[in-house]
């Protein structure tokens, strides 16, 4: 018998959670797992391939991936500086600004869509001059989809990165400055690498949220196949006309999200495995 293995097993037994906790946790796992099992159970597997490769499905899939990646990129470009200012820069009214920027996190997305309309719509606060001056029209366009997704998804990245920046040891940055690094150089070479895990985690969360965005998108960008009809919209629409297709599309979305979460967790997120590791 391998002594080390026995020792590990005995020490795991020593710290095993109480039975009641194990039972409740198992119920929670079942609560999450059952809907997915149900989905897999109801999918018309024999027609799955043909349903998936219909033009509607493929177009929605491509549009979803494209727009969600754009939304993630915009969230990083604007979200990291925003998180930096919120975490590091004391200014009057910071709490109000912070609440404002994170509002869409708790808002019903449909309300977010309505609000977007009043600002960036054809007759909106900014939408009107945009259209009159440049002829740019955001609603009911692919850019509108990206805008709606970014509006809903960016707070996830901001929250994650802001928390990382707040918890970051600032002394290496100070050291960098004394070594001749400008603020910008120290940010790129010292701060950014240090918050990389949080940045990736935040980007993944934002991306997943953008991929699943429904309410704000359909309100602000509408439901035009090939232009604004993303996967969630296509699923919702297909539910009435073609339930089988809705099921297949749902499974595809779950597979993509699940795959990304699994592959990222261990490598970059500092993963659940290492947090609870037996050391």
């Amino acid at each position, binding site marked *: 018998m391998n002594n080390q293995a026995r020792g590990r097993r005995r020490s795991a037994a020593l710290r095993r959670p109480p039975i009641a906790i194990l039972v409740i946790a198992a119920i929670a796992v079942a609560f999450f797992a059952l809907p997915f099992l149900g989905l897999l159970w109801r999918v018309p597997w024999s027609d799955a391939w043909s349903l998936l490769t219909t033009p509607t499905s493929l177009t929605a899939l491509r549009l979803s991936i494209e727009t969600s990646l754009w939304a993630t990129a915009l969230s990083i470009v604007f979200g990291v500086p925003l998180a930096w200012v919120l975490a590091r820069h004391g200014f009057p009214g910071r709490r109000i600004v912070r609440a404002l920027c994170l509002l869409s996190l708790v808002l019903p997305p449909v309300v977010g869509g309505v609000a977007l309309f009043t600002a960036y719509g054809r007759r909106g606060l900014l939408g009107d001059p945009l259209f009159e001056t440049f002829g740019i029209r955001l609603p009911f366009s692919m850019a509108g989809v990206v805008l709606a997704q970014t509006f809903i998804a960016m707070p996830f990245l901001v929250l994650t990165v802001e928390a990382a920046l707040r918890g970051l*040891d600032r*002394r*290496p940055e*100070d*050291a*960098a*400055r*004394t*070594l*001749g*690094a*400008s603020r910008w*150089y120290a940010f790129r*070479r*010292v701060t950014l*690498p*240090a918050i*990389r895990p949080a940045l990736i985690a935040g980007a993944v969360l934002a991306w997943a949220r953008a991929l699943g965005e429904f309410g704000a998108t359909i309100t602000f960008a509408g439901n035009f196949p090939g232009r604004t009809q993303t996967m969630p919209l296509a699923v919702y629409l297909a539910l009435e006309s073609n339930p089988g297709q809705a099921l297949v599309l749902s499974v595809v979305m779950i597979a993509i999200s699940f795959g990304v979460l699994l592959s990222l967790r261990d490598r970059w997120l500092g993963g659940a495995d290492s947090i609870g590791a037996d050391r």
Partner: protein
Amino acid sequence: MSIDAHFTIQRSNFELRVEVEVEEGEVLAVLGPNGSGKSTLLQVLAGLEPIDAGTISLNGVVVDDAERAVFVMPELRHVGVMFQDCSLFNNLSIVDNIAFGLRARGMRKAMARQRAEEWLERFSLESFGRRHPSSLSGGQLQRVALARALATEPSVLLLDEPTSALDVRAKAEIRRDLLRLRRERPVTTLLITHDPLDAFALADRVVVLEEGRVVQSGALDDVAAHPQSRHIADMVGLSLVRGEVAEGVLTDSSGAQLIVPADTPPGRSVASIRPASVSLHRTQPEGSARNSWLMTVADLDRHPERVRARLTGPVPLLAELTPAGADSLGLVLGDSIWASVKASEVTVSPDLAP
């Protein structure tokens, strides 16, 4: 004047008001307990904290003037800092850590790496270049931090507790490296420490900080002989004897012998003796494992609560006694007196000075 700082900096519960001047090439030790403002002084000089009143000049250039709203950013001050916790960049290899300052100043990568390799060699760290900070010991990290601070060839070097949190051996190694550096290329240095051995080994002059004020400054020997406060007395009063240890006895270059704890490893060593461990007697004291020498009282420093006597003889000693004790001995300047120290009261550390 390489460093000329006269300033006040205000914190919610603390005010640091100091005047510090360091000549070119001089090493000034700043001694003081935790919370005395030592680290704040370093931050101010490095440009990481702006002052509230006064001026700071480095090499004749005003870098911070509260009244005239002058402030030179830390990256433009050309000050090398070795931080207490090293503050190395964990995402970079050791060689890239050392090359960082050169890269930040625009040097090409290959060139900066090559320079960094030279610094690694100078500190006998060449085998660690590709490794990351997390795999190095505390003493090695300190040497990397020192090499990184020196790689940009700063005109002023600030060392924050370079030997704290190290074991005796690693402390001695860092002191050796700093001493060698001093000999090879004298850099104006401000050394912050609470370990008087650092000051004894490296400094020309000391400044003692307490609660945000300079309470005493001058040559270390003078400060040790005439401490202005209980705290300074405790901190700087050490008597040092250098020599070779063999079988529990340290022999110095003049042949004087000092009995040290029996388990002291042999080799070149520095013994330190606290003044309170030295007792004085009119007749030669008896007892095993006890050092005793006939000494001459060269200096007497009387305070209401203590008397400090500088003694010359086979080994130089500082002794401290109560005023009552001094009176009952009838201690006067020029007296001959027996001084004794228990072997167990002698602290010995390895001497790596070149």
